[in-house]
């Protein structure tokens, strides 16, 4: 005879080894004590090897489904060992609960096995297939987008002007402070770092050339594009993706709208207008940063610095940087919208597409910039 009390239940085993065993349960058989309860109950058949087990639950005040599970598992265990099992003193309410539990369901294996880890070949194949599908989807999206843009060019009144203005504000005006701050700091850093080197050769003045050329030709458009990709490309993808999940895009189609013309074109146009403007601001603030270092750290006058800046840059460089900005804008907004339309599933899909929009945009910006670098080299000379 042994008595054990858990936190909420009391368990008493009567009977000696090899004889009939009676288990008296009382108190609360609930989820909170399931672990000790199950362990104690399941140890009984092995410990006593009884001829017969009787579980008396007449003292049980509260039984929840976890407690019922413990009783059923005990019964299954006894039966599997060939020991007759009997449950005594079950109240009417607890009987209802015990009947509710589908004993067969506890044994039934899942209809589908847990997904196994695919081997490396399968993984590679799946990856290649996804990349190929992605490529096809992007190509078909580019085709549709170009067609939609061409249509809007031919029918300017079909463009939703208010939407374009709204996105211009969100992607452009709202992004100006961060673009300005980052460019200013970038100008400061470039001027400071280069001045440390150029000072040694007495070439302080050329800090202005360095900052201007680096910023206008390369860093201005790229930095702006990366900031816009992070701020607006992701927002476009999340917005369209959520609309796809909520059937809003399907609603547009059934109402006879072309979702690309309706959703993507205003965003792409807005981006193509504001990114060059942001780039000009970025150039300006970076040069201002250089100027601050020039005046405070290099004993240059503002006039000399500005004069040197003006001499170092040609209109051609400035114009090509704006062309680059327009192309980057189209890439960012285009891939943002495409990733949005690609969303499948729910919240997780939107998150993935947003991440992918930013990563793809930055990748495309760098690829496009490399292409520009080579092309411009031949155009320039």
């Amino acid at each position, binding site marked *: 005879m042994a008595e054990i009390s858990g936190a909420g239940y009391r368990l008493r085993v009567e009977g000696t080894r090899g004889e009939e065993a009676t288990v008296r349960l009382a108190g609360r058989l609930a*989820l909170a004590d*399931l*672990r000790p309860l199950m362990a104690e109950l399941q140890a009984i058949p092995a410990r006593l090897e009884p001829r017969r087990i009787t579980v008396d639950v007449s003292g049980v005040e509260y039984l*929840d*489904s*976890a407690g019922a*599970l413990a009783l059923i598992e005990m019964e299954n265990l006894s039966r599997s060992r060939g020991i007759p099992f009997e449950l005594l003193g079950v109240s009417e309410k607890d009987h209802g609960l015990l009947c509710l539990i*589908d004993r*067969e369901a506890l044994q039934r294996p*899942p209809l589908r096995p847990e997904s196994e880890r695919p081997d490396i070949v399968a993984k590679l194949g799946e990856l290649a297939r996804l990349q190929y599908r992605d490529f096809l989807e992007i190509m078909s999206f580019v085709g549709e987008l170009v067609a939609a843009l061409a249509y809007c060019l031919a029918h300017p009144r079909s463009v939703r002007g208010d939407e374009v203005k709204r996105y211009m504000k969100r992607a452009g005006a709202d992004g100006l402070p961060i673009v300005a701050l980052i460019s200013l700091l970038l100008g400061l850093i470039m001027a400071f770092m280069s001045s440390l080197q150029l000072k040694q050769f007495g070439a302080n003045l050329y800090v202005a050339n360095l900052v201007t050329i680096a910023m206008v030709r390369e860093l201005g458009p790229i930095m702006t594009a990366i900031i816009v990709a992070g701020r607006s490309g992701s927002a476009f993808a999340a917005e369209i993706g959520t609309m796809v999940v909520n059937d809003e895009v399907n609603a547009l189609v059934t109402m006879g709208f072309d979702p690309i013309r309706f959703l993507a074109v205003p965003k792409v146009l807005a981006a193509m207008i504001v990114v060059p403007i942001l780039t000009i601001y970025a150039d300006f603030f970076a040069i201002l940063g250089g100027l601050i270092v020039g005046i405070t750290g290099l004993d240059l006058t503002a006039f000399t610095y500005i004069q040197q800046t003006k001499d170092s840059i040609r209109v051609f460089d400035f114009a090509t940087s704006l062309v680059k900005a327009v192309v980057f804008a189209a890439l960012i907004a285009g891939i943002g919208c495409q990733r949005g339309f690609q969303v499948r599933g729910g919240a997780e899909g939107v998150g993935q597409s947003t991440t992918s929009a930013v990563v793809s945009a930055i990748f495309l910006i760098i690829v496009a910039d490399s292409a520009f670098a080579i092309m411009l080299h031949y155009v320039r000379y």
Partner: protein
Amino acid sequence: MASSNRDPVIIVEGLTARYGDVTILEDVSFEVYRGERFMILGGSGCGKSTLLKHMIGLLQPAAGRVVINGVDITRADGETLHRVRSQIGVLFQADALFGSMSLAENVALPLAEYTDLPPELIREIVRMKLGLVGLAGYDNHMPSELSGGMRKRAGLARAMALDPSFLFYDEPWAGLDPVTAAELDILIRSLNEGIGTTMVFVTQELASIFSLGQRVIMLHKDARGIIARGTPQELRETSTDPRVNHFFNRQAD
């Protein structure tokens, strides 16, 4: 079974709910007894869901209190609220299953959070819960692969994972076909009678109100509060309030 046991376990007292300056509910008071199926009725925009959100502690009332099992959840500290929440299961209107997890993982989530059971035991409880709602074997299916009715039942299995004393349902029949809705009624009734869970429904589904509702309150937009109380049959047959009659007879105002 509820009428024999008049033991109030949820007490709402003088509850006033506001969104900004807009008052949705004013001075609402009622009690829910242990083990009963209690329904909050009313047309769209009357504040049913707002009331439910206050009762489960998702929103703070502007005035009044909500007492669940003796704990005033409007003033409870974080730890107490956490404890009370483990006794509450909620089935949301849009099932709210996590789309990135399989059914088994969805149901196992509260068990892993609130108990220290080993994984095998949790798996066993999950199998039992899925069996309770008639989804045995669907452990490794994703929510997106199931029909609306199955998702509702899976949501119910998750809401019941911890054997809560209270189950709250927000429009559980919305979007279900009549057959599936009737099956859900049978399931809910058997759970209520088998386990004795206290159930609170927010609904406007007439068929289910009559098949399941034991006691109801009806809210109205203009009254910003309760306009009728009683059993569904009483309200339908004896109420003289035209707003109540229109609701139960499915008439336009």
